[in-house]
């Protein structure tokens, strides 16, 4: 698993298009919070949800394989047991990062992603890590562990 601040910073800078697998259309679901946050911070969000047509103004796809454009990050909001096929598809579509959300931990998927040259993050929230590293989370009193004398950009 990859979770030093410097690696997470690189991942969140490099990945600009994020396929959110299991994105819910309900505003109060964590996946919706995270995706909306990503959109507001300049990321392109592509929902993967076979049971919806449009979420957050974006067309939904039934699976990663159907997405007609390049995907940088695959962000997974599914049960841990269901992640391995998603990881296989992430490798197939040449994503750069497999990101399993808080509470989602599939070690086999993690291993496959890393063996295939992808960055792999588990049990973390993409929104929380972005806010931790690029500001915002600090305002919620969270211990970001950022110690620096550089002005943030």
């Amino acid at each position, binding site marked *: 698993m990859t979770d*030093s601040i410097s690696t997470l910073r690189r991942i969140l800078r490099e990945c600009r298009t994020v396929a959110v697998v299991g994105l819910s259309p309900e505003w*109060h679901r964590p996946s919706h919070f995270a995706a909306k946050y990503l959109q507001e911070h300049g990321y392109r969000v592509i929902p993967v949800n076979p049971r919806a047509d449009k979420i957050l103004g974006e067309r939904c796809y039934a699976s990663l394989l159907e997405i007609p454009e390049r995907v940088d990050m695959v962000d997974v909001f599914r049960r841990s047991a269901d992640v391995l096929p998603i990881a296989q598809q992430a490798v197939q579509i040449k994503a750069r990062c497999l990101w399993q959300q808080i509470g989602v931990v599939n070690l086999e998927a993690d291993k496959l992603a890393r063996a295939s040259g992808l960055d792999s993050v588990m049990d973390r929230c993409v929104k929380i890590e972005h806010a931790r590293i690029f500001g915002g989370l600090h305002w919620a*009193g969270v*211990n970001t*562990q950022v*110690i*620096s*004398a*550089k002005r943030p950009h």
Partner: protein
Amino acid sequence: MAEHRFQPETLAIHAGQIPDAATGARALPIYQTTSFVFDSAEHAASLFNLQTFGNVYSRLSNPTVAALEERVAALEGGRAGLASASGMAAEAIALMTLLQQGDHVVAAGALYGGSVSMLAVNLAKLGIQTSFVDAGSPEAFAAAMRPDTRAVFAETLGNPSLHVLDIGAVAEVAHAHGVPLIVDNTVPSPFLCNPIRFGADIVVHSATKYLAGHGTTLGGVLVESGKFPWDNGKFPGMTDPSPGYHGVKFYETFGDFGFTMRARMETLRVYGAALSPMSAWQILQGVETLPVRMERHCRNALAVAHYLRQHPRVSWVNFPGLPDHAQHELLAKQMRRVDGAPGGSGLLAFGVKSAAGDAEGGKRAGVKFIEGAQFMSHLANIGDTRTLIIHPASTTHRQLDDAQQLAAGVLPDMVRMSVGLEHIDDILWDIDQALAQTND
């Protein structure tokens, strides 16, 4: 690359504050504003829905206050912090976020008087019962646990009893019942002890004391460990849609800082005991020097304890930093070492001898000592740069009769001292000349 682990001396200065994004200011700016503008209606909606992090109104969050919150969370090795108008407010916010009518608390018996009142009187009025138990007996905590118990509350170092809590043993009792241990860590400060390391789930501080250190500013902070499993079925308020914040599920949405977010959005927001930005800034001026101050407090207090023990006008000395104190071993297990010995913080208690030798004589001798001091200040605070003294039997506990005072650990001849940062020779001189006036 492995993350570098910063020491408390560095965290006390840097954690929670990088140069200001807008101006590049190196020192912490004071954001003295009640409110913050929204970029658009959409931005406002997402802030209110907690979908983006940001500032709305200083009763909820403020960038200057946030620096204090993150710094204390970092010093405690916790996940997140929440500041409040005083230490009592921090404790109230922690308890009122967790508890509701019909819940039960198990608390250490020899707590700070204000905490006893909150539990025994104020929360009791809301239908929350507390059982007080012997702070020295993890078995007593276990025996008092009930199916409706939802929190265990204790102090790392009791004030004024100076009782040392076995944090690990009491945390084990709480966790065996699926409830969190809340520890008031005011007296050791996060420099000497981090209760989360030993199993505490929530730590509360009166930042007014050692954290600020200058005796000028009131404030409090609560810190969440990020390790408590709130989805164990006992805390529906953490897992179910919040009626207090339009349906947000705090644990699911914010994970290991869900408790802090809930405390902020449901309790601080509604009851309003927010810390002012100016106060947060003043407290942070003190926090930067916490490690050096605590070392000196410990050193001076140990020297005072040794001095008092051999003084002919002193009958007893209670300071857990003394090597033969009954709980010294436990202190050694939980506290940072200062000069090679476990740091005992700056609080101690002692008895003044009287000619009569009875309770009345002891009380008179204690009062004479207080009145005879030249620069040691007679007041009710602790953790100041100045040496502070008080005679509990004639002041803070005077409304209690002798038997009640004894039960609260207050002896008639007892003087409590918060040893300050003056030169040790001068402190010992003032003690000696004041003791000389107790027997005329």
